[in-house]
């Protein structure tokens, strides 16, 4: 399995490939992933120029470990295959499929990615895939989409198009997104892939953004698509385990390991009842803390 399948993706920042100033050094903001956009942000007549910038950026710029995802144009255009060739030739880490509606959409992209990897001599399997669900149909097919390719690391909700399809609008309360969010996170967890939330577009309302991130964090999402570097510290703050959680998780893991060896199944840690069911959660907290750079212990 590609080791990047499960990497940390709390913040996935969209960047317009048409704007060199944006793509030259976004890593200074320390997002987990950048999503280099060839689709909606790029004017129709600038698609070639954007691909050119993208290819050279991927080739020339050291993104210092930040994952480089490319959002290609939709499968209903005649642009997407060339987008994939250009992205794979440049050496991107992953392709984001917009407006994914079926498992077949993922498989079509997978085939084009495999062909491009062969054509450009890239290591087979190095290019991962993620699918953006932007319609009611896509959301309904989330479970199949999640299982469509071994390269697919996750699914992402794209709230703008999705709410249009629902014949409503983004209200700011999250009510209109609740069903899709719930459905998608369940599908993702059922199939072992990651799940990402939609963008929050009102940059003047950082408190609203914070509430939105807290909501999706509580729901279980792995991260959020973002549109401005100012949003990154808030996402990371909410997703980074707090010191007391890290200490507790460490105790839980250690106690379970010890008690298991002693043949004890249920016991208490800091007054809370703990059994083996807590083990994976505690391990996950420590892994997230480690990946976030706030835990340097050996567990």
């Amino acid at each position: 399995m590609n080791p990047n399948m499960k990497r940390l993706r709390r913040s996935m920042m969209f960047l317009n490939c048409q704007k060199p100033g944006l793509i030259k050094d976004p890593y200074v903001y320390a997002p987990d992933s950048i999503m280099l956009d060839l689709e909606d942000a790029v004017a129709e007549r600038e698609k070639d120029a954007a691909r050119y910038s993208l290819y050279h950026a991927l080739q020339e710029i050291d993104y210092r470990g930040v994952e480089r995802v490319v959002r290609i144009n939709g499968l209903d255009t005649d642009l997407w295959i060339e987008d994939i060739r250009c992205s794979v030739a440049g050496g991107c880490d992953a392709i984001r499929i917009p407006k994914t509606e079926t498992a077949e959409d993922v498989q079509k992209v997978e085939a084009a990615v495999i062909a491009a990897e062969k054509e450009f001599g890239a290591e087979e399997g190095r290019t991962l895939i993620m699918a953006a669900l932007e319609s009611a149909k896509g959301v309904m097919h989330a479970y199949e989409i999640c299982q469509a390719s071994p390269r697919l690391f996750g699914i992402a909700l794209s709230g703008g198009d999705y709410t249009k399809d629902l014949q409503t609008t983004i209200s700011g309360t999250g009510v209109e997104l609740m069903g899709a969010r719930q459905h998608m996170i369940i599908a993702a967890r059922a199939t072992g892939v990651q799940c990402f939330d939609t963008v929050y577009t009102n940059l003047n309302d950082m408190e609203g953004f914070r509430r939105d991130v807290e909501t999706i964090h509580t729901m279980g999402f792995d991260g959020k698509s973002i549109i401005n570097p100012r949003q990154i510290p808030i996402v990371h703050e909410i997703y980074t385990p707090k010191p007391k959680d890290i200490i507790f998780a460490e105790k839980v893991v250690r106690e379970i390991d010890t008690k298991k060896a002693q043949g004890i199944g249920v016991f208490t840690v800091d007054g809370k009842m703990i059994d083996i069911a807590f083990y994976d959660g505690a391990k996950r907290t420590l892994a997230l803390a480690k990946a976030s750079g706030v835990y340097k212990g050996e567990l």
Partner: protein
Amino acid sequence: MINAVGREIPDEILKATGKEPFQGNNYKNGVPFRRQGPIIRPVMENTHNKLVKDIHEALVKCKAHNGMTISFHHHFREGDLIVNMVMEEIHKMGIKNITLAATSLGKAHDPLVPMIEDGTITRIEASGVRGKIGQAISDGKLKGLAIMRSHGGRVRSLVTGETKVDIAFIGAPTSDDYGNLRGIGGKTNCGVLSYSHVDGDCAEYVVAITDCLVPFPNFPAHISMTKVDYVCVVDAIGIPEKIATGAAKPTTDQRKLMMAEYCTQVVVNTPYFKEGFSYQTGVGGASIASTISLTKIMEERGIKMGFGVGGLTKPMCDLLDRGMVRVLMDTQAFDLDAVSNVINPAHHRITAGAYANPFNKGAFVNKLDYVILASLEVDVHFNCNVVVGSDGVITGAQGGHPDTAQGAKCTIVICPLLQGRIPAICSEVTTVTTPGESVDVVVTDYGVAVNPNRHDLLECLQKADCVPLKTIEELRDIAYAIVGEPEPVQFEDRIVGIIEARDGTIMDVVRQVKHYG
């Protein structure tokens, strides 16, 4: 001769200016000198009338002549109308070979370029020059030398008699008919008149120019009638909306916010951050953001500032209003909030001399704990360049940069690693304007470098683990890895300007830029 910052200062310049090469920050410390004063023409008759009908009459009465030196202040910033107004009259009168000794010159003074070309203005002394005059000097159009000196250095230059001002023109938002001048009232509020104070003390003739004549006495006067020879009333001395604008909105640029946060972390994790600390900052987005984020930590830790000094902005005035700083010492009001805040009894006006003159028996800058500065370029020796662009053209001003940098116990320079495609952290700055010995910490978007001479600060920051620490060479290498190492800018041999150190020695020279065919 090579000076203390490694710059070659040609002998012919040393000879022509009678100056010494820069030999370190404290070279003149304690060296006695005699303060120079002007010739005074006493006014004893009680019928004496100081009012003149126009600039022309003022020039005639002040015996304007070829080769004279005239001075101006820059409190009206880009809204200044006075320099152009006076120069137009001088030009009309056919007076030539003027030394223009302004505290600073900006784009507002672009119309003076033809007067440089026709020999009306042949020398310029200023903190710096922006706009077309800077280009004209760099193109070699000024016949004599341009001398760029800091605010403190300018006061030194006047009080030592190195610069002899024949006529000082002091734009005053209000004046009475006897020359009591104030920086407030009228229609061109600028709050303070700090920069001209020394001109009042040292110039042979002092002409006040106002567009708001008020009844005698205009008191308390910021510049006293005891120093003013003539008062000239004109229609307008400045464009109010270009003098002070509303406070800049706090930046939303995450890169600047990151640098501001690093800067704040440096401040709060170094030993001078304690009750009663002193602080100065500038008007850049990152500087203002840093003041805002510092305020939060001051509140959390219950630490109050002793004094803030320098050019002031709304965030600093807010600190005063909230009782989080004991006093503000004001040399320049950068926004309308700062102008209106001057009425606060703990908001004091100080002269540019008290602020920064290195030849005082001490200046405010010497008592600074922290100063937050910006820079166009910083090199691996921590030398800063705030005057000459990376294209070799004069494009900025020293202001109080070298004064505060030397004075403060912890000098922090905020500078993005790259300015567009130009590496701002480099091997050698184009021109040295503030020596590396004055600079303690450089904050960039890629990390923070501490001057190796300040291992005490480095240890504090390492221990606190609060910012990504890098060496200055590492920052330079990152910059070069991204955009490449630029070819040095090409210059002609001719020296068009000198960068004067605070003490009057020569920090660097500026040569004419070479144009490519």
